[in-house]
């Protein structure tokens, strides 16, 4: 038997396999394929204080082993989430982790406050790294000072575990990670999408309605693994690793690099069953390698490396 449960600070996950914000809706879209409570956690689509209609189309463009998206945080707003969606997912036997965003620090706090009192929420993921909105989002995650401010203020209004989602579009992700840790983050999500651009050579114009978009998928994996490696060695809080995981081998690689849990994002689109395949694969890998606790994989690559 392999112990598959992991703890992200005070947050217990029955297994380390989760689905990434923005790729799994509010947890209902894929239920025809498998029961979502098999997952360790569901990170919901980004939620803001008020409804957001998102960016104009086109919002999506396939790139070699990746996709560029410019959704722009389309969501019905926190009140509608609580009223219409949360009741349908709150009893699932998995950790429900709303991903929250705002244009101002105040907005992040108000969303957190509203969710704080609700039953069925395990933690909050603070999105300081969305590349597709003009205000807020990545602007907060681009420098350690503003990141600190958001985490500090949200920390004041809620006792829920806070997972801060970091942007890779920075000069030094470690300094932002440390700032978030210092202000009371319980864990870090590493990484959000990489800012990218594609131009249609027939029209000679950018393909996305919002011009730039976030790159995700297998194309970004080595960048993400490197950042998990760097961040997990620099902070004491656990890291949730993500960025291009498309199979169990990728997930194991992220854990060896320092992730305590993993998030599957873009790979859900071509293969809705991928999360279950990853879960099964990690467990088998542990068995074959005589590892009795999946947590022992975390950071093994740097912990045991000869320097």
């Amino acid at each position, binding site marked *: 038997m392999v112990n598959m449960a992991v703890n992200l600070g005070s947050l217990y996950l029955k297994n380390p396999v989760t689905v990434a914000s*923005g790729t799994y809706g509010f947890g209902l*879209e894929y239920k025809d394929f498998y029961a979502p409570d098999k997952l360790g956690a569901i990170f919901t689509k980004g939620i803001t204080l008020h409804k957001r*209609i998102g960016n*104009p189309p086109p919002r999506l463009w396939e790139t070699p082993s990746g996709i560029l998206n410019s959704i722009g945080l389309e969501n019905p707003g926190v009140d509608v989430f609580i009223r219409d969606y949360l009741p349908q997912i709150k009893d699932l036997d998995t950790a429900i982790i709303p991903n929250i965003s705002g244009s101002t620090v105040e907005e992040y706090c108000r969303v957190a406050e509203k969710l704080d009192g609700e039953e069925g929420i395990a933690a909050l993921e603070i999105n300081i790294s969305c590349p597709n909105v003009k205000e807020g989002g990545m602007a907060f995650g681009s420098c350690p000072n503003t990141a600190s401010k958001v985490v500090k203020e949200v920390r004041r209004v809620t006792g829920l575990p806070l997972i801060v989602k970091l942007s890779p579009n920075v000069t030094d992700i470690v300094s932002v990670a440390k700032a978030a840790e210092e202000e009371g983050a319980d864990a870090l999500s590493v990484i959000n999408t990489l800012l990218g651009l594609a131009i249609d050579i027939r029209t000679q114009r950018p393909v996305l309605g919002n011009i730039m978009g976030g790159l995700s998928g297998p194309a970004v994996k080595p960048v993400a693994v490197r950042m998990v490696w760097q961040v997990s060695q620099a902070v004491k809080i656990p890291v949730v690793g993500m960025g291009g995981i498309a199979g169990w081998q990728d997930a194991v690689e992220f854990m060896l690099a320092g992730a305590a849990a993993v998030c599957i994002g873009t790979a859900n689109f071509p293969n809705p069953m991928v999360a279950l395949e990853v879960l099964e694969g990690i467990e088998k890998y542990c068995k074959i390698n005589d590892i009795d606790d999946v947590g022992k994989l975390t950071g093994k690559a740097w912990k045991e490396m000869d320097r």
Partner: protein
Amino acid sequence: MYKKMYIEEGKISYQYYLGNGQFLMEVFSPQVAGRALPGQFVHIACGPALSTDPLLRRPISIHRINKEQGSIEIYYLVVGKGTELLGMKSAGDNISIMGPLGRGFALEQKAKKAVLVGGGMGIAPLLALAQELAKEGKEVVSVLGAASGAGLARAGAFLAYGKLIEATEDGSRGLKGRVTDHLEASILGNDTLVYACGPLAMLRAVAEMTGKMGVPCQVSLEARMACGVGACLGCTCVSTAEGAYPKVCKDGPVFWTSEVSL
């Protein structure tokens, strides 16, 4: 749990090349076929298993549904990396099919006459619709157009379900001109419903014509898609209501012209 979407390893029973980049493929996919409705689509993994390039599935409309046999037909054009790989498959090969997806054409409507307007590859989803409408006892008129005769390779199949009007821009087959040049006479009169699929310019022209004549009209749209199930919010179109971007995969692909701004 009540299931409505499936992921199934479908077995290709045949794939024919119809010229000009067009293919007709039949896939044995009993779960998908069992629930499929005209106007819905399937999401197909075109590349080899475990390949990440192309990364996404390709949304392809269902051309014909054979529930007794448990198969569906797709009729598609090679337009890029995904469809090119799909075109290289042969009878006996397996492909991963996800579906049936989306909201199909409105059926069991009051109108006694249905006019199906298809332009180019837009002809693809209309055959399953023609078959269903004929079964409902409607009078079906199919007005199908393409740049040239080669694009009307599947038009003949519509004859089994009603009247067929063909048009080509170069006049190489049927009437010369665009479908919209030959549409008005067919949709005159009450009790008519128009279903259209084709290039955006054609859909705009059809929507404008039917709007002026007060004839209700449905259009089937396409968009680049990732998930196909409404989770990623990538495949938006523009709503006629202010401040809304409906999703082609889940709210559509079929919309009333009153719902979307084309």
